[in-house]
């Protein structure tokens, strides 16, 4: 990557982060959704500490996954509608680079706040003390896969009006492995078992998503721009 295209890359990332946290951006919305949706569970299943401790890793991960999902449907759509995506497609980054920049921005602006807020929710859900470290680490390691896979779905549905529902139909089945490995790791820590194996698999899932995600997103965007 030459110096100029690196500049474009960081510029694009900064622009998208600023947009996500400006008026009407997705950053605050995803975080609020994360906080509210997790607090629904004690109302739903009852406030017994033992039950909450048992389901805490799964609940936090599933809700983080959904919060990530609801923030994805506008990932490319705004730029597609106002034509900036046509401009970006001509930049020296190429569409794969543009997709990667937008994915990075999405992760930093929308997903990272969820990771930061997760210990607080662990507290509310009575998560065992041994599992906090693994939970935060598994979120850091696994959520990039959510953004990368989700970007593909967002790119495929970019020209679809009200594509949000379709997006979830496409993306959720692909999220299954990430969820299984991540919750497996947190559960292992909560039960005093070494979580190294599920964490390694989680990292592998993220790396694979890094290989496939930007490329497939670029293919889908090219299709929409034709």
């Amino acid at each position, binding site marked *: 990557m030459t110096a100029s295209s690196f500049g474009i890359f960081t510029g694009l990332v900064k622009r998208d982060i600023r947009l996500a946290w400006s008026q009407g951006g997705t950053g605050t919305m995803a975080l609020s959704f994360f906080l509210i949706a997790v607090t629904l569970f004690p109302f739903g299943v009852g406030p017994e500490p033992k039950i909450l401790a048992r389901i805490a890793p799964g609940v936090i991960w599933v809700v983080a996954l959904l919060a990530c999902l609801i923030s994805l449907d506008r990932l490319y759509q705004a730029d597609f509608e106002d034509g900036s995506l046509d401009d970006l497609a001509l930049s020296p980054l190429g569409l794969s680079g543009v997709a990667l920049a937008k994915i990075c921005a999405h992760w930093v602006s929308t997903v990272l706040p969820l990771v930061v807020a997760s210990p607080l929710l662990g507290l509310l859900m009575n998560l065992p003390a041994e599992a906090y470290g693994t939970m935060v680490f598994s979120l850091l390691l696994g959520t990039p896969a959510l953004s990368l896979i989700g970007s*593909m779905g967002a790119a*495929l*549905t970019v*020209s*679809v009006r009200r*594509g949000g529902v*379709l997006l979830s*139909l*496409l993306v*959720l*089945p*692909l999220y*299954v*492995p990430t969820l*299984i*490995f991540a919750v*497996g790791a947190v*559960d292992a820590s909560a039960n005093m078992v070494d979580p190294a194996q599920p964490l390694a*698999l989680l990292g592998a*899932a993220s790396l*694979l998503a890094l290989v*496939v995600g930007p490329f*497939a997103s670029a*293919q*889908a965007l090219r*299709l*929409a721009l*034709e």
Partner: protein
Amino acid sequence: MHRFANPAQFNRLADRILPWAKFVLAASLLYGLYLAFLGSPPDRQQGESVRIMYVHVPAAWMAMFCYMVVAGASFTEIVWRHPLALLAGKAAAPIGATFTALALITGALWGKPTWGTYWQWDGRMTSVLVLFFLYLGYMAIWRSMDEEDKAGRAASILALVGVINIPIIKFSVEWWNTLHQPASVLRLDGPTIDSSMLWPLLLMALAFKAYFVIVFLYRMKLEINRRKLTVLRMSQVNRR
């Protein structure tokens, strides 16, 4: 491969295959059903409910096979822009989704008397369920856009990503299951399958495959004719 890109040539080929496929279907289905229901013994442990297997196992095989057809067609479409590949994927997906649903339903019906439950979050069942969702996503994206070819190509990208994901899903859910339920009661692979049970199974599998070929070819022909009709209508409108 591009020899069959000509729809007329494809139609001729399909017309030549169809009667044979129908003959194979009729013969193998009749003899297979006879063997499955009357000509084979009930299982020592499962009793009469083992006969569900003669529908369940071929349906599950076809569920995987149809996805490979969809994925192969998608790959051909993305790489070579083969004009019929797009239609092949569209034609195969609903058949595959139906076989997947059939496998899930018959599995549940078999599970109730054998395991005592309709559904268990077993690795294999869960991965087939995810496969079903992938089919639904593929078909939903086909319907989502006004421009059909564009929708088809978007669906092709999804199908290919799904192909990478299928082994991971299968592996992850099986791993996930063993963590929670070590040494569960589930045993799909009986010790050794006796030839009195193997024959009806293979015949039913052949019948299902022939059924797929017939429906697939008819759906392809339908799609080709539908496109011809659209082009004809367009040209008539333009002439006016």
